[in-house]
Protein backbone atom coordinates (compact mmCIF):
# COMPACT_ATOMS: atom_id res chain seq x y z
CA UNK A 1 0.00 0.00 0.00
CA UNK A 2 1.48 3.29 -1.00
CA UNK A 3 0.22 5.05 2.09
CA UNK A 4 2.79 7.26 3.66
CA UNK A 5 2.28 5.84 7.12
CA UNK A 6 2.86 2.33 5.92
CA UNK A 7 5.66 3.41 3.64
CA UNK A 8 7.45 5.04 6.56
CA UNK A 9 6.99 1.89 8.59
CA UNK A 10 8.19 -0.26 5.75
CA UNK A 11 11.31 1.80 5.27
CA UNK A 12 12.02 1.61 9.00
CA UNK A 13 11.39 -2.14 8.96
CA UNK A 14 13.79 -2.42 6.04
CA UNK A 15 16.51 -0.85 8.13
CA UNK A 16 15.66 -3.26 10.91
CA UNK A 17 15.95 -6.23 8.58
CA UNK A 18 19.34 -5.09 7.44
CA UNK A 19 20.33 -5.79 11.02
CA UNK A 20 21.89 -2.64 12.17
CA UNK A 21 21.35 -2.97 15.88
CA UNK A 22 20.89 0.27 17.70
CA UNK A 23 20.41 2.04 14.42
CA UNK A 24 18.19 5.07 14.59
CA UNK A 25 17.07 7.20 11.73
CA UNK A 26 16.52 10.85 11.34
CA UNK A 27 12.81 11.43 10.77
CA UNK A 28 13.74 13.72 7.89
CA UNK A 29 15.55 10.90 6.16
CA UNK A 30 12.50 8.65 6.44
CA UNK A 31 10.16 11.32 5.12
CA UNK A 32 12.51 12.10 2.24
CA UNK A 33 12.85 8.48 1.33
CA UNK A 34 9.10 8.00 1.41
CA UNK A 35 8.67 11.06 -0.77
CA UNK A 36 11.22 9.87 -3.28
CA UNK A 37 9.56 6.47 -3.46
CA UNK A 38 5.99 7.69 -3.63
CA UNK A 39 6.00 11.08 -5.22
CA UNK A 40 8.89 10.91 -7.64
CA UNK A 41 7.40 7.85 -9.32
CA UNK A 42 5.95 8.46 -12.76
CA UNK A 43 2.66 10.36 -12.44
CA UNK A 44 2.54 12.61 -9.40
CA UNK A 45 0.82 10.46 -6.84
CA UNK A 46 -0.30 13.23 -4.54
CA UNK A 47 -2.55 16.20 -5.12
CA UNK A 48 0.57 18.23 -4.46
CA UNK A 49 3.70 18.26 -2.33
CA UNK A 50 1.89 20.06 0.47
CA UNK A 51 -0.63 17.25 0.62
CA UNK A 52 2.14 14.69 0.80
CA UNK A 53 4.09 16.58 3.45
CA UNK A 54 1.01 17.10 5.59
CA UNK A 55 0.38 13.36 5.46
CA UNK A 56 4.03 12.55 6.14
CA UNK A 57 4.31 14.95 9.07
CA UNK A 58 1.15 13.64 10.68
CA UNK A 59 2.16 10.02 10.06
CA UNK A 60 5.53 10.63 11.64
CA UNK A 61 3.91 12.26 14.65
CA UNK A 62 1.55 9.30 15.07
CA UNK A 63 4.33 6.75 14.74
CA UNK A 64 6.51 8.50 17.28
CA UNK A 65 3.65 8.99 19.73
CA UNK A 66 2.62 5.37 19.46
CA UNK A 67 6.18 4.22 20.00
CA UNK A 68 6.64 6.55 22.96
CA UNK A 69 3.44 5.24 24.54
CA UNK A 70 4.54 1.65 24.13
CA UNK A 71 7.92 2.52 25.64
CA UNK A 72 6.33 4.20 28.58
CA UNK A 73 4.22 1.08 29.07
CA UNK A 74 7.37 -1.06 28.92
CA UNK A 75 9.03 1.18 31.48
CA UNK A 76 6.10 0.76 33.81
CA UNK A 77 6.50 -2.98 33.46
CA UNK A 78 10.03 -2.84 34.83
CA UNK A 79 13.60 -2.25 33.63
CA UNK A 80 13.19 1.47 33.92
CA UNK A 81 16.87 2.37 34.20
CA UNK A 82 17.98 0.22 31.30
CA UNK A 83 15.39 1.61 28.98
CA UNK A 84 16.25 5.16 29.93
CA UNK A 85 19.93 4.52 29.44
CA UNK A 86 19.26 2.79 26.18
CA UNK A 87 17.21 5.66 24.99
CA UNK A 88 19.91 8.14 25.81
CA UNK A 89 22.43 6.10 23.87
CA UNK A 90 20.05 5.79 20.94
CA UNK A 91 19.35 9.47 21.00
CA UNK A 92 23.02 10.22 20.52
CA UNK A 93 23.65 13.83 21.41
CA UNK A 94 20.16 14.97 20.52
CA UNK A 95 18.65 16.71 23.50
CA UNK A 96 15.98 14.25 24.60
CA UNK A 97 12.47 15.46 23.96
CA UNK A 98 9.47 13.93 25.64
CA UNK A 99 7.41 13.11 22.57
CA UNK A 100 4.26 12.48 24.57
CA UNK A 101 4.50 15.82 26.35
CA UNK A 102 5.22 17.50 23.04
CA UNK A 103 2.26 15.77 21.40
CA UNK A 104 0.00 16.86 24.20
CA UNK A 105 1.25 20.45 24.17
CA UNK A 106 1.02 20.55 20.40
CA UNK A 107 -2.60 19.43 20.51
CA UNK A 108 -3.33 22.28 22.91
CA UNK A 109 -1.52 24.73 20.66
CA UNK A 110 -3.60 23.48 17.73
CA UNK A 111 -6.73 24.58 19.58
CA UNK A 112 -5.34 28.11 19.96
CA UNK A 113 -3.74 28.34 16.57
CA UNK A 114 -3.94 25.52 14.04
CA UNK A 115 -1.49 27.26 11.67
CA UNK A 116 1.26 27.39 14.29
CA UNK A 117 0.76 23.72 15.15
CA UNK A 118 0.94 22.81 11.48
CA UNK A 119 4.25 24.64 11.15
CA UNK A 120 5.65 22.67 14.09
CA UNK A 121 4.48 19.41 12.54
CA UNK A 122 6.17 20.23 9.25
CA UNK A 123 9.35 21.66 10.76
CA UNK A 124 9.88 19.11 13.50
CA UNK A 125 8.15 15.89 12.47
CA UNK A 126 8.76 16.12 8.73
CA UNK A 127 12.10 17.92 9.16
CA UNK A 128 11.37 20.70 6.68
CA UNK A 129 13.46 23.84 6.50
CA UNK A 130 11.87 27.25 7.04
CA UNK A 131 11.80 27.81 3.28
CA UNK A 132 10.21 24.45 2.55
CA UNK A 133 7.65 25.00 5.30
CA UNK A 134 6.80 28.41 3.86
CA UNK A 135 6.21 26.80 0.49
CA UNK A 136 4.08 24.08 2.02
CA UNK A 137 1.81 26.39 4.01
CA UNK A 138 1.75 29.09 1.35
CA UNK A 139 3.24 31.99 3.25
CA UNK A 140 6.55 33.83 3.27
CA UNK A 141 9.68 32.46 4.96
CA UNK A 142 9.75 35.56 7.16
CA UNK A 143 6.25 34.85 8.47
CA UNK A 144 7.05 31.18 9.02
CA UNK A 145 10.19 32.16 10.91
CA UNK A 146 8.21 34.42 13.23
CA UNK A 147 5.45 31.88 13.75
CA UNK A 148 7.98 29.11 14.31
CA UNK A 149 9.66 31.26 16.97
CA UNK A 150 6.34 31.88 18.66
CA UNK A 151 5.28 28.23 18.51
CA UNK A 152 8.61 27.09 19.92
CA UNK A 153 8.48 29.61 22.74
CA UNK A 154 4.90 28.64 23.55
CA UNK A 155 5.66 24.91 23.48
CA UNK A 156 8.81 25.34 25.53
CA UNK A 157 6.84 27.20 28.13
CA UNK A 158 3.97 24.69 28.10
CA UNK A 159 6.34 21.73 28.37
CA UNK A 160 8.47 23.27 31.09
CA UNK A 161 5.25 23.49 33.06
CA UNK A 162 5.04 27.20 32.29
CA UNK A 163 2.40 28.52 34.66
CA UNK A 164 -0.46 29.30 32.38
CA UNK A 165 -0.56 28.61 28.69
CA UNK A 166 -3.99 30.10 28.27
CA UNK A 167 -5.42 27.10 26.46
CA UNK A 168 -7.99 26.32 29.12
CA UNK A 169 -9.30 29.81 29.37
CA UNK A 170 -12.25 29.53 27.04
CA UNK A 171 -15.08 31.67 28.32
Amino acid at each position, binding site marked *: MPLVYEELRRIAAGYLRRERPGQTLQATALVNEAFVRLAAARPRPF*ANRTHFLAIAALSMRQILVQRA*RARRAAKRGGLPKQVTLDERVLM*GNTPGIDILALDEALSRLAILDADLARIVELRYFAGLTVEETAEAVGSSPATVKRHWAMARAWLKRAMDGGQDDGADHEP
Partner: protein
Amino acid sequence: MTPHEWKRLKALFTGALDQPEATRESWLEEHAAGDEVLAREAAALLRAHDTAEGFLEIPPQVDPADVAEVDAEAPGTRLGPYVIEYCIDNGGQGIVYCARDTRLERRVALKALPPFDDGNPELRERLRREARAAATIAHRAVATVYALEEIDGRLFIASEFIDGGTLRQEIDRGALEPARALSIAADIADALCAAHAAGVIHRDLKPANVMIAINGSIKVVDFGIARVRGVDTRLTRTGAAVGTPAYMPPEQLIAGNSDLRSDIYAVGVILTEMLTGQHPFAPGRRPVPLAAAEVTSRCLQPDPANRYQTADDLSQALQTALEEAADGTVSVEPMSTGNRSARWWWEFHQAMVSLVYAAMLWPAWLARGSIGGNVGNALFVATLAAAVVAITLRLHLWFTARFYPAELAWARQRARGWVISSDMVLSGALILAGGLIGDTSGAVAVLDIAAGIGSASASLLIEPATTRAAFRV
Protein backbone atom coordinates in the same frame (compact mmCIF):
# COMPACT_ATOMS: atom_id res chain seq x y z
CA MET B 1 -7.64 32.88 25.84
CA THR B 2 -10.04 34.16 23.21
CA PRO B 3 -9.05 34.11 19.53
CA HIS B 4 -8.89 37.90 19.66
CA GLU B 5 -6.51 37.90 22.62
CA TRP B 6 -4.39 35.26 20.93
CA LYS B 7 -4.16 37.37 17.80
CA ARG B 8 -3.01 40.36 19.85
CA LEU B 9 -0.50 38.24 21.75
CA LYS B 10 0.86 36.97 18.45
CA ALA B 11 1.19 40.52 17.11
CA LEU B 12 2.93 41.67 20.32
CA PHE B 13 5.33 38.73 20.38
CA THR B 14 6.32 38.89 16.74
CA GLY B 15 6.49 42.68 16.85
CA ALA B 16 8.78 42.66 19.87
CA LEU B 17 10.93 39.98 18.28
CA ASP B 18 11.72 42.33 15.41
CA GLN B 19 13.08 44.91 17.85
CA PRO B 20 16.68 44.95 19.09
CA GLU B 21 16.89 42.91 22.29
CA ALA B 22 17.57 45.94 24.50
CA THR B 23 14.44 47.81 23.51
CA ARG B 24 12.02 44.90 23.47
CA GLU B 25 10.61 45.52 26.91
CA SER B 26 9.90 49.18 26.35
CA TRP B 27 8.46 48.35 22.94
CA LEU B 28 6.10 45.86 24.57
CA GLU B 29 4.97 48.33 27.19
CA GLU B 30 4.34 50.92 24.56
CA HIS B 31 2.34 48.63 22.28
CA ALA B 32 0.37 46.60 24.81
CA ALA B 33 -1.97 49.57 25.13
CA GLY B 34 -2.27 49.20 28.88
CA ASP B 35 -3.19 45.52 28.76
CA GLU B 36 -0.85 44.28 31.47
CA VAL B 37 -1.88 40.64 31.38
CA LEU B 38 -1.15 40.43 27.69
CA ALA B 39 2.15 42.29 28.07
CA ARG B 40 3.24 39.88 30.82
CA GLU B 41 2.24 36.91 28.70
CA ALA B 42 4.22 38.24 25.74
CA ALA B 43 7.23 38.96 27.94
CA ALA B 44 7.10 35.41 29.33
CA LEU B 45 6.99 34.03 25.81
CA LEU B 46 9.97 36.16 24.84
CA ARG B 47 11.90 34.80 27.82
CA ALA B 48 10.94 31.27 26.81
CA HIS B 49 12.08 32.10 23.31
CA ASP B 50 15.48 33.18 24.59
CA THR B 51 15.95 29.87 26.39
CA ALA B 52 14.58 27.80 23.50
CA GLU B 53 17.87 27.81 21.59
CA GLY B 54 18.08 24.51 19.72
CA PHE B 55 14.70 23.36 21.02
CA LEU B 56 12.94 21.23 18.34
CA GLU B 57 15.61 22.23 15.84
CA ILE B 58 16.86 18.68 15.39
CA PRO B 59 14.21 16.35 13.97
CA PRO B 60 13.36 13.36 16.13
CA GLN B 61 15.28 10.11 15.87
CA VAL B 62 13.29 7.04 14.99
CA ASP B 63 14.04 3.60 16.28
CA PRO B 64 13.10 1.19 13.49
CA ALA B 65 11.74 -1.20 16.10
CA ASP B 66 8.90 1.18 16.71
CA VAL B 67 5.90 -1.07 16.32
CA ALA B 68 3.79 -1.08 19.42
CA GLU B 69 3.15 -4.65 20.49
CA VAL B 70 0.28 -5.07 22.87
CA ASP B 71 -0.48 -7.96 25.20
CA ALA B 72 -3.90 -9.32 24.35
CA GLU B 73 -6.03 -11.37 26.72
CA ALA B 74 -5.72 -15.10 26.19
CA PRO B 75 -8.67 -17.11 24.81
CA GLY B 76 -10.89 -18.40 27.60
CA THR B 77 -10.25 -15.40 29.85
CA ARG B 78 -13.38 -14.34 31.69
CA LEU B 79 -14.23 -10.66 31.77
CA GLY B 80 -17.43 -10.24 33.75
CA PRO B 81 -20.14 -11.99 31.77
CA TYR B 82 -17.93 -12.29 28.71
CA VAL B 83 -15.56 -15.08 27.76
CA ILE B 84 -12.82 -14.16 25.30
CA GLU B 85 -12.77 -16.43 22.27
CA TYR B 86 -10.01 -14.82 20.27
CA CYS B 87 -8.40 -11.53 19.42
CA ILE B 88 -9.73 -10.06 16.16
CA ASP B 89 -7.60 -6.97 15.92
CA ASN B 90 -4.67 -5.75 17.94
CA GLY B 91 -3.60 -2.31 16.91
CA GLY B 92 -1.92 0.50 18.74
CA GLN B 93 -5.28 2.26 19.09
CA GLY B 94 -7.27 -0.56 20.63
CA ILE B 95 -7.90 -4.27 20.86
CA VAL B 96 -10.99 -5.98 19.51
CA TYR B 97 -11.94 -9.43 20.75
CA CYS B 98 -14.50 -11.92 19.67
CA ALA B 99 -16.20 -12.91 22.93
CA ARG B 100 -19.22 -14.87 24.12
CA ASP B 101 -21.82 -13.13 26.23
CA THR B 102 -22.69 -15.88 28.72
CA ARG B 103 -25.96 -14.23 29.74
CA LEU B 104 -27.52 -14.10 26.29
CA GLU B 105 -25.39 -16.88 24.82
CA ARG B 106 -24.44 -14.89 21.79
CA ARG B 107 -21.23 -13.70 20.26
CA VAL B 108 -20.21 -10.09 20.62
CA ALA B 109 -17.31 -7.94 19.55
CA LEU B 110 -15.55 -6.45 22.59
CA LYS B 111 -13.44 -3.39 22.07
CA ALA B 112 -10.97 -2.26 24.73
CA LEU B 113 -8.11 0.20 25.05
CA PRO B 114 -4.58 -1.20 24.94
CA PRO B 115 -3.65 -2.09 28.56
CA PHE B 116 -1.09 0.69 28.79
CA ASP B 117 -3.69 3.25 27.80
CA ASP B 118 -6.46 1.97 30.02
CA GLY B 119 -5.74 4.50 32.73
CA ASN B 120 -5.73 7.45 30.35
CA PRO B 121 -8.89 9.46 31.15
CA GLU B 122 -8.92 11.14 27.77
CA LEU B 123 -8.79 7.87 25.84
CA ARG B 124 -11.41 6.38 28.16
CA GLU B 125 -13.66 9.32 27.43
CA ARG B 126 -13.06 8.80 23.74
CA LEU B 127 -14.13 5.17 24.01
CA ARG B 128 -17.29 6.24 25.84
CA ARG B 129 -18.01 8.77 23.16
CA GLU B 130 -17.46 6.17 20.49
CA ALA B 131 -20.07 3.93 22.10
CA ARG B 132 -22.55 6.79 22.41
CA ALA B 133 -21.97 8.01 18.86
CA ALA B 134 -22.45 4.56 17.35
CA ALA B 135 -25.46 3.89 19.58
CA THR B 136 -27.34 6.89 18.16
CA ILE B 137 -27.28 5.35 14.69
CA ALA B 138 -29.70 2.59 13.86
CA HIS B 139 -28.93 1.33 10.39
CA ARG B 140 -28.45 -2.05 8.76
CA ALA B 141 -24.96 -0.99 7.60
CA VAL B 142 -23.77 0.21 11.00
CA ALA B 143 -22.72 -2.31 13.65
CA THR B 144 -25.17 -2.19 16.56
CA VAL B 145 -23.78 -1.22 19.96
CA TYR B 146 -25.12 -3.45 22.74
CA ALA B 147 -23.51 -1.96 25.82
CA LEU B 148 -20.73 0.06 27.35
CA GLU B 149 -19.22 -2.07 30.11
CA GLU B 150 -16.84 -1.30 32.90
CA ILE B 151 -15.33 -4.50 34.25
CA ASP B 152 -12.69 -4.36 37.00
CA GLY B 153 -12.00 -0.78 36.06
CA ARG B 154 -11.47 -1.59 32.40
CA LEU B 155 -13.74 -0.12 29.81
CA PHE B 156 -15.29 -2.17 26.97
CA ILE B 157 -17.72 -1.61 24.16
CA ALA B 158 -19.82 -4.67 23.43
CA SER B 159 -21.28 -4.61 19.95
CA GLU B 160 -22.65 -6.77 17.20
CA PHE B 161 -20.17 -9.44 16.15
CA ILE B 162 -19.74 -9.58 12.40
CA ASP B 163 -18.61 -12.93 11.13
CA GLY B 164 -16.49 -12.16 8.12
CA GLY B 165 -13.56 -9.97 7.27
CA THR B 166 -12.72 -6.38 6.58
CA LEU B 167 -12.90 -4.60 3.28
CA ARG B 168 -9.15 -4.08 3.68
CA GLN B 169 -8.58 -7.84 3.47
CA GLU B 170 -10.88 -8.07 0.47
CA ILE B 171 -9.06 -5.28 -1.38
CA ASP B 172 -5.70 -6.82 -0.54
CA ARG B 173 -6.82 -9.91 -2.46
CA GLY B 174 -7.31 -7.72 -5.54
CA ALA B 175 -9.63 -5.20 -7.11
CA LEU B 176 -13.36 -5.85 -6.78
CA GLU B 177 -15.91 -6.25 -9.58
CA PRO B 178 -17.14 -2.74 -10.48
CA ALA B 179 -20.77 -3.54 -9.67
CA ARG B 180 -19.79 -5.02 -6.30
CA ALA B 181 -17.53 -2.05 -5.51
CA LEU B 182 -20.27 0.43 -6.39
CA SER B 183 -22.80 -1.46 -4.33
CA ILE B 184 -20.50 -1.55 -1.28
CA ALA B 185 -19.83 2.17 -1.70
CA ALA B 186 -23.58 2.78 -1.94
CA ASP B 187 -24.10 0.87 1.33
CA ILE B 188 -21.38 2.94 3.00
CA ALA B 189 -23.06 6.09 1.69
CA ASP B 190 -26.39 4.90 3.11
CA ALA B 191 -24.77 4.28 6.48
CA LEU B 192 -23.34 7.80 6.29
CA CYS B 193 -26.81 9.21 5.53
CA ALA B 194 -28.04 7.67 8.77
CA ALA B 195 -24.98 8.78 10.72
CA HIS B 196 -25.05 12.34 9.41
CA ALA B 197 -28.79 12.54 10.05
CA ALA B 198 -28.03 11.59 13.65
CA GLY B 199 -25.41 14.35 13.75
CA VAL B 200 -22.43 11.98 13.72
CA ILE B 201 -19.43 12.44 11.44
CA HIS B 202 -17.28 9.31 11.26
CA ARG B 203 -13.94 10.99 10.40
CA ASP B 204 -12.02 7.72 10.15
CA LEU B 205 -13.63 5.86 7.28
CA LYS B 206 -11.25 3.40 5.66
CA PRO B 207 -11.40 -0.15 4.32
CA ALA B 208 -10.22 -1.52 7.67
CA ASN B 209 -13.31 0.03 9.27
CA VAL B 210 -15.77 -1.58 6.89
CA MET B 211 -16.66 -5.15 7.81
CA ILE B 212 -17.98 -7.57 5.24
CA ALA B 213 -20.12 -10.32 6.68
CA ILE B 214 -20.10 -13.81 5.22
CA ASN B 215 -23.48 -13.11 3.58
CA GLY B 216 -21.90 -10.15 1.78
CA SER B 217 -23.62 -7.39 3.75
CA ILE B 218 -21.42 -4.60 5.02
CA LYS B 219 -21.18 -2.80 8.36
CA VAL B 220 -19.35 0.40 9.12
CA VAL B 221 -17.49 0.15 12.43
CA ASP B 222 -15.18 2.17 14.66
CA PHE B 223 -16.70 5.52 15.47
CA GLY B 224 -13.65 6.07 17.67
CA ILE B 225 -12.97 9.61 16.59
CA ALA B 226 -16.42 10.46 15.33
CA ARG B 227 -17.68 13.91 16.06
CA VAL B 228 -21.13 14.29 17.46
CA ARG B 229 -23.21 17.40 17.00
CA GLY B 230 -23.50 19.40 20.19
CA VAL B 231 -20.50 17.77 21.84
CA ASP B 232 -17.61 20.03 22.68
CA THR B 233 -14.97 19.21 20.11
CA ARG B 234 -12.23 20.22 22.50
CA LEU B 235 -12.78 16.87 24.15
CA THR B 236 -10.81 15.36 21.32
CA ARG B 237 -7.75 17.29 22.31
CA THR B 238 -5.60 14.69 20.70
CA GLY B 239 -7.85 15.16 17.69
CA ALA B 240 -5.05 16.89 15.83
CA ALA B 241 -3.14 13.65 15.62
CA VAL B 242 -5.89 11.09 15.16
CA GLY B 243 -7.39 9.71 12.01
CA THR B 244 -5.75 7.92 9.14
CA PRO B 245 -3.81 10.36 6.99
CA ALA B 246 -4.28 8.48 3.73
CA TYR B 247 -8.07 8.80 3.98
CA MET B 248 -8.17 12.37 5.20
CA PRO B 249 -9.05 15.20 2.81
CA PRO B 250 -6.66 18.13 2.42
CA GLU B 251 -8.69 20.46 4.61
CA GLN B 252 -8.61 17.98 7.51
CA LEU B 253 -4.89 17.32 7.09
CA ILE B 254 -3.76 20.84 6.52
CA ALA B 255 -6.19 22.94 8.51
CA GLY B 256 -7.63 20.34 10.87
CA ASN B 257 -11.16 21.13 9.67
CA SER B 258 -13.60 18.36 9.10
CA ASP B 259 -17.27 18.15 8.34
CA LEU B 260 -19.52 15.59 6.71
CA ARG B 261 -17.76 16.22 3.40
CA SER B 262 -14.60 14.71 4.89
CA ASP B 263 -16.48 11.41 5.09
CA ILE B 264 -17.48 11.85 1.45
CA TYR B 265 -13.83 12.29 0.48
CA ALA B 266 -12.99 9.06 2.34
CA VAL B 267 -15.66 7.19 0.35
CA GLY B 268 -13.92 8.42 -2.82
CA VAL B 269 -10.61 6.97 -1.63
CA ILE B 270 -12.25 3.68 -0.62
CA LEU B 271 -14.17 3.35 -3.90
CA THR B 272 -11.00 3.99 -5.91
CA GLU B 273 -9.19 1.36 -3.87
CA MET B 274 -11.97 -1.16 -4.38
CA LEU B 275 -12.04 -0.57 -8.13
CA THR B 276 -8.31 -0.52 -8.77
CA GLY B 277 -6.80 -2.18 -5.71
CA GLN B 278 -4.74 0.96 -5.24
CA HIS B 279 -4.90 4.23 -3.38
CA PRO B 280 -5.98 7.17 -5.61
CA PHE B 281 -2.55 8.75 -5.21
CA ALA B 282 -0.61 5.56 -5.85
CA PRO B 283 2.04 6.02 -8.49
CA GLY B 284 0.99 4.47 -11.79
CA ARG B 285 -2.45 3.58 -10.49
CA ARG B 286 -4.77 1.87 -12.93
CA PRO B 287 -7.66 4.07 -14.11
CA VAL B 288 -11.05 3.86 -12.49
CA PRO B 289 -13.77 2.26 -14.67
CA LEU B 290 -15.71 4.86 -16.55
CA ALA B 291 -19.00 4.17 -14.77
CA ALA B 292 -17.46 5.27 -11.47
CA ALA B 293 -15.05 7.91 -12.71
CA GLU B 294 -17.33 10.85 -12.10
CA VAL B 295 -18.26 9.72 -8.59
CA THR B 296 -14.67 9.18 -7.48
CA SER B 297 -13.52 12.39 -9.10
CA ARG B 298 -16.20 14.42 -7.34
CA CYS B 299 -15.61 12.77 -3.96
CA LEU B 300 -11.88 13.44 -4.20
CA GLN B 301 -12.13 17.13 -5.09
CA PRO B 302 -9.61 19.01 -2.92
CA ASP B 303 -12.11 21.79 -2.30
CA PRO B 304 -15.00 20.43 -0.20
CA ALA B 305 -17.38 22.82 -2.00
CA ASN B 306 -16.83 20.84 -5.20
CA ARG B 307 -17.66 17.46 -3.65
CA TYR B 308 -21.11 15.99 -3.16
CA GLN B 309 -22.51 18.11 -0.39
CA THR B 310 -24.46 15.39 1.37
CA ALA B 311 -24.29 11.63 1.74
CA ASP B 312 -27.74 11.55 0.11
CA ASP B 313 -26.34 13.11 -3.08
CA LEU B 314 -23.46 10.65 -3.03
CA SER B 315 -25.79 7.74 -2.48
CA GLN B 316 -27.96 8.80 -5.43
CA ALA B 317 -24.94 9.25 -7.70
CA LEU B 318 -23.75 5.78 -6.74
CA GLN B 319 -27.19 4.30 -7.42
CA THR B 320 -27.20 5.92 -10.86
CA ALA B 321 -23.69 4.65 -11.58
CA LEU B 322 -24.76 1.20 -10.42
CA GLU B 323 -27.81 1.19 -12.70
CA GLU B 324 -25.79 2.44 -15.66
CA ALA B 325 -23.14 -0.19 -15.05
CA ALA B 326 -25.84 -2.87 -14.72
CA ASP B 327 -27.76 -2.05 -17.90
CA GLY B 328 -24.56 -1.50 -19.84
CA THR B 329 -25.15 2.13 -20.79
CA VAL B 330 -21.80 3.06 -19.30
CA SER B 331 -18.68 1.08 -19.70
CA VAL B 332 -17.21 -0.65 -16.69
CA GLU B 333 -13.94 -0.81 -18.58
CA PRO B 334 -11.15 1.45 -17.46
CA MET B 335 -11.27 4.68 -19.39
CA SER B 336 -7.98 4.45 -21.17
CA THR B 337 -8.59 1.06 -22.74
CA GLY B 338 -12.34 1.27 -23.48
CA ASN B 339 -13.30 2.72 -26.85
CA ARG B 340 -10.00 4.23 -27.61
CA SER B 341 -10.95 5.01 -31.22
CA ALA B 342 -14.22 6.74 -30.29
CA ARG B 343 -12.36 8.71 -27.67
CA TRP B 344 -9.75 9.56 -30.23
CA TRP B 345 -12.48 10.91 -32.55
CA TRP B 346 -13.97 12.93 -29.74
CA GLU B 347 -10.59 14.46 -28.93
CA PHE B 348 -10.01 15.08 -32.64
CA HIS B 349 -13.39 16.76 -32.83
CA GLN B 350 -12.51 19.11 -29.95
CA ALA B 351 -9.21 20.06 -31.56
CA MET B 352 -10.70 20.50 -35.05
CA VAL B 353 -13.60 22.64 -33.86
CA SER B 354 -11.09 24.88 -32.07
CA LEU B 355 -9.17 25.34 -35.31
CA VAL B 356 -12.27 25.95 -37.43
CA TYR B 357 -13.60 28.52 -34.93
CA ALA B 358 -10.32 30.38 -35.09
CA ALA B 359 -10.53 30.36 -38.90
CA MET B 360 -14.09 31.73 -38.82
CA LEU B 361 -12.81 34.97 -37.36
CA TRP B 362 -11.59 35.86 -40.84
CA PRO B 363 -15.04 35.97 -42.58
CA ALA B 364 -16.40 37.61 -39.41
CA TRP B 365 -13.76 40.31 -39.78
CA LEU B 366 -14.67 40.79 -43.46
CA ALA B 367 -18.36 41.06 -42.52
CA ARG B 368 -17.51 43.73 -39.96
CA GLY B 369 -15.95 45.82 -42.75
CA SER B 370 -18.96 45.37 -45.03
CA ILE B 371 -21.60 46.13 -42.41
CA GLY B 372 -19.66 48.94 -40.83
CA GLY B 373 -20.65 51.10 -37.91
CA ASN B 374 -21.55 49.99 -34.41
CA VAL B 375 -23.59 47.02 -35.59
CA GLY B 376 -20.63 45.63 -37.49
CA ASN B 377 -18.33 46.13 -34.54
CA ALA B 378 -20.80 44.63 -32.07
CA LEU B 379 -21.30 41.52 -34.20
CA PHE B 380 -17.57 41.02 -34.58
CA VAL B 381 -16.96 41.46 -30.85
CA ALA B 382 -19.72 38.92 -30.11
CA THR B 383 -18.17 36.46 -32.57
CA LEU B 384 -14.72 37.00 -31.14
CA ALA B 385 -15.85 36.60 -27.51
CA ALA B 386 -17.85 33.46 -28.24
CA ALA B 387 -14.97 31.96 -30.24
CA VAL B 388 -12.49 32.64 -27.45
CA VAL B 389 -14.74 31.02 -24.83
CA ALA B 390 -15.56 28.03 -27.02
CA ILE B 391 -11.93 27.45 -28.03
CA THR B 392 -10.62 27.81 -24.49
CA LEU B 393 -13.14 25.35 -23.09
CA ARG B 394 -12.58 22.82 -25.86
CA LEU B 395 -8.82 22.96 -25.49
CA HIS B 396 -9.27 22.58 -21.74
CA LEU B 397 -11.39 19.47 -22.29
CA TRP B 398 -8.93 18.14 -24.82
CA PHE B 399 -6.05 18.70 -22.42
CA THR B 400 -7.97 17.12 -19.54
CA ALA B 401 -8.79 14.10 -21.69
CA ARG B 402 -5.14 13.66 -22.57
CA PHE B 403 -3.54 14.22 -19.21
CA TYR B 404 -6.14 13.95 -16.43
CA PRO B 405 -8.67 11.42 -17.73
CA ALA B 406 -10.12 10.84 -14.26
CA GLU B 407 -11.21 14.48 -14.12
CA LEU B 408 -12.82 14.44 -17.55
CA ALA B 409 -16.37 13.51 -16.60
CA TRP B 410 -16.49 16.29 -14.06
CA ALA B 411 -14.82 18.80 -16.38
CA ARG B 412 -17.27 17.96 -19.16
CA GLN B 413 -20.21 18.41 -16.87
CA ARG B 414 -19.00 21.81 -15.72
CA ALA B 415 -18.18 23.03 -19.24
CA ARG B 416 -21.25 21.67 -21.04
CA GLY B 417 -23.56 24.69 -20.62
CA TRP B 418 -20.87 27.20 -21.52
CA VAL B 419 -19.75 25.26 -24.56
CA ILE B 420 -23.25 25.06 -26.03
CA SER B 421 -24.00 28.73 -25.21
CA SER B 422 -20.81 29.99 -26.81
CA ASP B 423 -21.39 27.77 -29.87
CA MET B 424 -24.87 29.23 -30.28
CA VAL B 425 -23.72 32.84 -29.84
CA LEU B 426 -20.97 32.27 -32.38
CA SER B 427 -23.33 30.69 -34.94
CA GLY B 428 -25.99 33.33 -34.33
CA ALA B 429 -23.56 36.22 -34.74
CA LEU B 430 -22.15 34.74 -37.96
CA ILE B 431 -25.59 34.12 -39.52
CA LEU B 432 -26.79 37.57 -38.49
CA ALA B 433 -23.67 39.21 -39.93
CA GLY B 434 -24.15 37.28 -43.18
CA GLY B 435 -27.76 38.45 -43.37
CA LEU B 436 -26.90 42.08 -42.74
CA ILE B 437 -24.23 42.21 -45.43
CA GLY B 438 -26.89 41.39 -48.00
CA ASP B 439 -25.96 42.24 -51.60
CA THR B 440 -22.95 44.44 -50.92
CA SER B 441 -20.59 41.54 -50.65
CA GLY B 442 -22.39 38.37 -51.62
CA ALA B 443 -19.46 35.98 -51.29
CA VAL B 444 -18.65 37.03 -47.73
CA ALA B 445 -22.34 36.89 -46.81
CA VAL B 446 -22.65 33.34 -48.10
CA LEU B 447 -19.42 32.38 -46.34
CA ASP B 448 -20.64 33.82 -43.02
CA ILE B 449 -24.06 32.20 -43.20
CA ALA B 450 -22.57 28.86 -44.21
CA ALA B 451 -20.03 29.03 -41.38
CA GLY B 452 -22.80 29.89 -38.90
CA ILE B 453 -25.05 27.05 -40.00
CA GLY B 454 -22.08 24.71 -40.11
CA SER B 455 -20.93 25.44 -36.59
CA ALA B 456 -24.48 25.27 -35.22
CA SER B 457 -25.09 21.87 -36.75
CA ALA B 458 -21.67 20.65 -35.67
CA SER B 459 -22.47 21.65 -32.13
CA LEU B 460 -26.04 20.30 -32.10
CA LEU B 461 -25.68 17.16 -34.23
CA ILE B 462 -22.10 15.98 -34.70
CA GLU B 463 -20.68 16.71 -31.29
CA PRO B 464 -23.41 14.90 -29.34
CA ALA B 465 -22.83 11.90 -31.59
CA THR B 466 -19.06 11.76 -31.06
CA THR B 467 -19.59 12.37 -27.35
CA ARG B 468 -22.08 9.52 -27.10
CA ALA B 469 -19.78 7.24 -29.02
CA ALA B 470 -16.81 8.14 -26.85
CA PHE B 471 -18.47 7.91 -23.46
CA ARG B 472 -21.30 5.42 -23.87
CA VAL B 473 -21.06 1.91 -25.11
